[in-house]
């Protein structure tokens, strides 16, 4: 029974990775591709690690698996943030698709009164 649950978890993780890869191929620009890409890095890998933990059932192995999950949860948002910021600053992101854009053309906070949201006062 536990093996059935482990298999279901692993299949769902692999399915999530496949769906994300389809999104990476079909989405139009960098930011929307990142939206698809950050799902298997966290949830997909966590599902597969949960399946692996149910399959191994050993305390030291599960400790290492928790360490892997912790590393992945710490590093995936940071790298996604860096890539998104680089995409925005180098002009690879398509600004006409954005609903809210709080930066001007130079990548700074848009402080002019043109209907756009103002910079945070700090």
């Amino acid at each position, binding site marked *: 029974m536990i093996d059935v649950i482990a298999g279901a978890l*692993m299949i769902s993780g692999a399915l999530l*990775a496949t769906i994300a890869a389809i999104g990476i*191929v079909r989405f139009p620009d960098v930011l929307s*591709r*990142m939206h698809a890409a950050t799902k298997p*890095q966290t949830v997909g890998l966590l599902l597969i690690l949960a399946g692996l933990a149910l399959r191994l059932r050993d305390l030291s192995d599960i400790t*290492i698996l928790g360490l892997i999950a912790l590393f992945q949860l710490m590093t995936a948002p940071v790298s996604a943030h860096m890539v998104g910021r680089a995409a925005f600053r180098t002009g690879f992101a398509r600004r*006409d698709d954005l609903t809210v854009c709080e930066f001007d053309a130079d990548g700074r906070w848009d402080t002019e009164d043109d209907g756009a949201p103002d910079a945070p006062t700090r």
Partner: protein
Amino acid sequence: MIVVGTICAVLLSITGALCVVRIVRGPTMLDRTVATDVFVAASAGAIGIEAAIGRHNSTLSILVVLALLGFLGSVSIAKFAAPDTDRRAHDDEEGES
């Protein structure tokens, strides 16, 4: 477990192939970075599924290495992303923005 392994192998192979398609076609360097991240995550998932089917723990250290290596690669590429030539190609492709 053999059935589970076969299904997961097919799904992760499709994932890897689609990521390679995006790495080859991707118009900018950051698209390739994002696709490489997903490829690394799929590789880590494949190694984990192989360990679950064989029920051995000898490849768990490789998972730790992969979890940190993808982070270092994408952060360093994003740090040194150059706006010059790729931006002109992007503007020609997308029209004036």
